[in-house]
């Protein structure tokens, strides 16, 4: 923590080495977050870039209350949401209407074992609306009320969207798991 404080102070002094160190320390984790909200690595890097610029511009507002990583994470999430709203290719897909065609029916109870990357890839394949709500609730831990406020939707919509996103993901995971099992069996 002390090390972190010193790092922040050095960054505030405008020292390039400290800024680079801060970036190196958090860039990997933050790119993972950005990646989950976007559809391509380039977009994720754009968000990461914008996010870090914001981090350095607003670092003086960080009051050392809570972890620095959590503070940066919040900035990254907000930046990602702004990015989705700003870019038309996401905006058209960022509808929170009910889409029953996507509702999977989960019948299998098979155990699913996947890597973080695989799960992230599946999350990114969700429609943007589902993807965003799933990330905000399941990963970031925001309540549906908070999500509703952030996205300008009702908490009920957030809840239903989340439930559908989860069902969809679970079905995809099971399908992938079965494919994997078949591949292993084939060997």
């Amino acid at each position, binding site marked *: 923590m002390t090390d972190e404080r010193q790092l922040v102070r050095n960054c505030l002094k405008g020292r390039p080495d400290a800024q680079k160190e801060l970036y190196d320390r958090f860039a*990997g984790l933050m790119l993972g977050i950005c990646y*989950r909200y976007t559809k391509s690595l380039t977009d994720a890097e754009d968000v*990461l870039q914008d996010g870090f610029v914001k981090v350095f511009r607003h670092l003086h507002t960080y009051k050392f209350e809570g972890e620095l990583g959590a503070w940066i994470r919040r900035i990254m999430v907000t930046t990602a949401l702004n990015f989705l*709203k700003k870019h038309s290719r996401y905006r058209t897909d960022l509808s929170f209407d009910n889409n029953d065609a996507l509702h999977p029916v989960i019948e299998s109870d098979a155990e699913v074992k996947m890597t973080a990357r695989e*799960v992230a890839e599946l999350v990114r394949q969700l429609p943007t609306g589902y993807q965003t709500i799933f990330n905000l609730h399941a*990963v970031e831990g925001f309540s549906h009320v908070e999500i509703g406020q952030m996205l300008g939707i009702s908490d009920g919509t957030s809840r239903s969207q989340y439930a559908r996103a*989860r069902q969809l993901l679970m079905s995809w995971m099971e399908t992938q798991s079965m494919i994997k099992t078949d591949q292993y069996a084939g060997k």
Partner: protein
Amino acid sequence: MRENEFDKGVKELMGEFRLQPSAQVWPEVERRIRERKRRRILIFWFLLAGVLLGAAGTWWYIQSGETTDRKISTTVISQQSGIDSFRQHENINRPAAIEKSTDLISAEKKITAPATTTVQSVPAEKLAVSKAIPKTPGSSPVVYPADINTVNNPLNKTQKQPTRKYPANKPKPVSVTDGASIATTASLPNPVMPAVLIPQPVVTADSADRNRGVVSVSQSMVPVVANTDSQLTAKPANVTDTVSTAVPPVATKNKKAAARKWETGLAFSAGFTRLTSGSIAGFGNAEKNFDAMYASPVGTNSSFYNNSPLIRYADTIPLYGWAWQAGVYAKRKTGKRTAFSAGMNIGFYSSWQTVGAFKDSSRIFRLAQGNVESNSYYLSGTENKYSNRYYYLQFPLLFHWQLNKARKGPALQWENGLMPVWLAGSRAIIYDRNDRMYYTDKKAYNRLGLAFQTGMSFRFAPQHKPAWSAGIYYNFHISQLQKMNQPAYNNLSSFGLQLRRSFKK
């Protein structure tokens, strides 16, 4: 239960999910941080320069006034020694006679002394005031302050008479300060030097000066020193027998007004345009042309191009072109070496860029601000050249500072100021990164903006001919050109030669 486990599992997995960003992210972050810092520093320096210029201008203005006053006092003292031999002339207070000495005169305050103030014989070492002494033959005549509107005030009459120049071999009339009025009486039989004092200013002489016959003028009383020389011409009896050398404030005001008159003229400048990235940068950057090897093929969205460090969007290079401005200006001196000018001109800026094939078909471009439909568009590429054109109505407000004395040669002037601009029209294309195409959208630009202008010029003012000046200029649009689909280089700037010519001398 199963769903809760799923949530928990996903959260754990995602919480540790990391990806290694590509190498070009950090340099770009660093560039943006530094750029913002640079912009802040520049804004700070501009503000500081503006404040300093304003302060310097004010100081010059005040200083020039003080210098004039000091000169007047000195002149009064030096000329007072010649009072004894002062020759009164009937036209002594005529405008033409005053012309010669008005450089040193600033009789701005109006004299409010009563018209009944009289002339009294005063020894040189002691001057006194005597009020309301009736005019009687043989006594000193009444002196009327120039601006007192009375029927008998001779000044009111003499001012209307034709001007005659004061003889060159005669001493100049005594100059006065701050409304002080010095008058001499004509045809006075009294051999003692007479003096008329108007109650406000006073003529004083210290012991050293008294010996030399030097009298200085202070503000509390107006001295009116009369010459008793018999050669003085007598005044016509029907007018008055008093001639005053008091400087008519009207003439002084006219002179001052002439000096501060607005100079109007034509202004023209021509040079180069450069679109910059928000910082004031020089010209001559190597990145003049859009290089095809950096251009991603149209419609390509492959990971190779998206992840390639070679990827360069077409809107990430500075653009160049021509620029010219033409208009009118009005300039007014604010001090000895300072002036302020306001103007209005039309500004033209262009920028060239390479584009691909032209497509004469309608297409909708999806932007963050909404969809834009364009009837035609260009693909990205290097097959064609396109010249973007921007037409501005500009209102330069400049502060001019003369850097040299310009006694023999031309005056070197440095100018700085701000220029509100209004985009009157445009014929330009906008690059859309998503589609990698160029389209036209007149709503994509900021209509109103602000520019900083600076320049250096030589001013030539030959006699009897209109003044003209020539030099260099640089302007930088602080506000951005495009508000939608903003490119990396989004601030117009231009550099070139400027020429100004006043309408008449």
